[in-house]
């Protein structure tokens, strides 16, 4: 059934070249998704083949960082899948509140929408002061944007609706100030957030945490790389710690299915046994 065409070969070579030269490891990314992103990059850069991209990547590091934005397209929203955050608010945080201090790892935080969703939840639960949030990503540009906490104004309507659907009862606009085209979130929300460069493909465990949230990141990985990420999460989590995944991500096809309880099945919140 499987036939390797030239494009597959070119992409494999490109990803190897990127790894050798820049230590960014996309070799375990799911080929079908990478292919589409590369096709978009070809159009954008007006290049005729992946091999041309490879040539430019090897000889022009600024080009690589432009390409990186295609390989790690940030697509997120605040309180994405509001039911997930409703479960967090109603059922997970009350358990975490029994700990004297908390550590949370948001893996693949992209441009930060998820970070601010969590810090708002924690603030409203009175837990923000005693929580440390590790927000990690491989894309330096995304991390920088996450740290700035500035989001396009035209997204705010959607974010507000999501916030309300997640069980938020405060005035959402109290959390940010606006100018003509953007919303700047309150600095106090990120006081306990540690922004860090970390790769699920190449880096290791850095802290023990009570909650790992990694949503819609693993869908871009192949099964071997997913397993590596699941290893890291399991090793990072304290006993009875929580793992939150994206709404269509699951442990069902992984050996880790047996090592967690499904805490909120539909919302993909798992609890380490």
């Amino acid at each position, binding site marked *: *059934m*499987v*036939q390797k*065409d030239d494009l*597959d070969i070119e992409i494999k070579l490109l990803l190897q070249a990127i790894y050798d030269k820049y230590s960014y490891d996309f070799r375990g990314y*799911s*080929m*079908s*998704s990478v*292919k*589409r*992103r590369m096709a978009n990059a070809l159009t954008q850069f007006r290049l005729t083949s992946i091999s041309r991209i490879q040539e430019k990547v090897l000889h022009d590091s600024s080009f690589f960082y432009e390409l990186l934005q295609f390989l790690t*397209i940030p*697509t997120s929203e605040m309180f994405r899948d509001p039911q997930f955050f409703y479960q967090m608010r109603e059922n997970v945080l009350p358990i975490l509140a029994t700990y004297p201090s908390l550590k949370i790892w948001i893996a693949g935080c992209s441009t930060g929408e998820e970070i601010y969703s969590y810090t708002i939840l924690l603030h409203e639960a009175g837990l923000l002061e005693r929580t440390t949030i590790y927000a990690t990503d491989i894309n330096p540009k995304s991390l920088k944007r996450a740290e700035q906490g500035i989001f396009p104004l035209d997204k705010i309507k959607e974010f507000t609706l999501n916030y309300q659907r997640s069980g938020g009862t405060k005035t959402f606009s109290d959390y940010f100030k606006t100018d003509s085209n953007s919303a700047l979130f309150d600095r106090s929300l990120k006081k306990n957030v540690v922004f860090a460069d970390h790769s699920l493909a190449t880096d290791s465990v850095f802290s023990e945490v009570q909650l790992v949230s990694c949503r*819609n990141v*693993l*869908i*871009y990985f*192949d*099964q071997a790389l*997913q397993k590596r990420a699941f290893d890291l999460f399991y090793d990072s989590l304290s006993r009875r710690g929580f793992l939150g995944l*994206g*709404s*269509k*991500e*699951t442990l*069902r*096809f992984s050996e880790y299915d047996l090592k967690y309880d499904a805490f909120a099945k539909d919302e993909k919140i798992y609890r380490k046994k």
Partner: protein
Amino acid sequence: MERLNWNKIETKGLYDMIVVGSSAGGIESLTQILVSLPAKFSQTMVIVQHISHDSKRSLANHFAVISHVPVREVEDKEPIEVGVVYFAPTNYHLLISSDGVFNLNIDPPVSFSRPSIDVLFQSAAEVYQKRVMGIILTGTNHDGADGLKQIRKHGGLAIVQNPDDARYPIMPQTALEVADPQLVMTLDEIGFFLNRL
């Protein structure tokens, strides 16, 4: 090119994968197709039906009731099984991976759609080559035309519902013009055709 006669072409054992794309008016059309599938369905069917992002409606649950064949909504890395009908989940692109599993992603909409028929069809064409057939049904946008063209290009079988027979003709009409399908059929004919695969 000249169209083939669906009643005369040989299909036995030639196709493993059937991908279907539908949009406005699709629920009714898919109902007709899914009830016609035989209980001993020996291919895999994967469907992208455009639906509002806010919809809580699970297409898989809806269709599981009426179909003789198991119907599921795909989760990421789900193994692709024979004899099952899969639906793309709302708000995710669905892709077929060369290692026999489904991949999902949340890349930006393609042809204003997520899930996009083009995305599914293109990945199916690349993986299954000539062993895939693609079917475009009713709808009011252009999604699926490019994907169907890819299926055709990789040697697969391209099928379009006759626009005169479709509730909303724009989508099949566009696919007809862009992909130059081998077969153009009414919904009834598509049902018969799938039943005797």
